[in-house]
């Protein structure tokens, strides 16, 4: 019964919070309306995710988000330094293939987005069979190191979250 009423409790919570933030008014009014949307939208869209992945490890999400935010900060400074101080002739752009251990489409999407937002790397393409990502590096004297860092830093944690 509860499962039928609340097919996706996390989405309900997220939608309510997002609605409150969007309305920018923390009143009972917006809370009720937000909850209403949080209940109706998951209920309507439930048939579109026949097998969505289960999140197995919530504390890991917090750790992951903090690490990614920190890396975004570092990445901005790194890229700014490359843009300003590395002459184009010395730039070493490189393509890197990252083989994937993740299988859930949601997890791969999260990894691809993270790679784009973090130091000097950008996800360009997914393999047709979905088992590797093509990553472009802005300045990578050591492409293998980039690949190992992506696998160790992000993919391992996403694997713990989703699988």
């Amino acid at each position, binding site marked *: 019964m509860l499962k039928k009423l609340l097919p996706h409790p996390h989405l309900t919570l997220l939608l309510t919070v997002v609605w409150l933030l969007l309305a920018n008014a923390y009143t009972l009014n917006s809370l009720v309306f937000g909850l209403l949307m949080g209940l109706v939208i998951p209920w309507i869209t439930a048939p579109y995710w026949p097998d969505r992945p289960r999140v197995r490890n919530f504390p890991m999400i917090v750790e992951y988000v903090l690490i990614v935010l920190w890396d975004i900060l570092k990445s901005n400074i790194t890229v700014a330094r490359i843009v300003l101080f590395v002459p184009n002739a010395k730039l070493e752009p490189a*393509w890197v293939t990252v083989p994937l251990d993740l299988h859930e489409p949601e997890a791969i999407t999260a990894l691809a987005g993270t790679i784009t937002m973090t130091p000097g790397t950008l*996800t360009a*393409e*997914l393999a047709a069979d979905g088992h590797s990502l093509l990553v472009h590096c802005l300045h990578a004297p050591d492409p293998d190191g980039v690949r190992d860092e992506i696998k160790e830093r992000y993919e391992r944690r996403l694997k713990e979250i989703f699988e």
Partner: protein
Amino acid sequence: MELFWEILIAALLVIGGFFGLVGSFGLVKLPDPMTRLHAPTKAATLGVGAVLIGSMVYFAAFKGDLSLHELMITLFIFLTAPITAHFIAKANLLRDWRPERLPPPEGEGDWAVYTPAADTSALELQEVEDADKEAAREAAQAAAQAAAGTTGSEAERG
């Protein structure tokens, strides 16, 4: 105390402006489309982020109300920036690169842009089109038969 907040907000705005400028400068300076993609997707994130944090601090310190709108803007930027970058990269791969110049993916197959058959939406569109054509032909045949039938019966009557 007021001075401290003012300095903090001013610093955040200057940081934001600086990174926005670097991001735009990168677009001009970097040599090719793939490297140019790096500048706006990253430098701009911190630029926008710093301005938004400045705005939150300003409203909290001087207007006395909590404004968390800005978190939503950040969230939407983090959701859309990688997707935009991915689509531009995909288009660029298709226009200016050949699979031979890229490292191959692990295992069988090739990258998705170079594998049209993997795009099932095109196949589905083709199937729908074929089904439409089939239906149209059958309808035309039926109409022709019906027309032949009526002229035939008219001829009999005559």
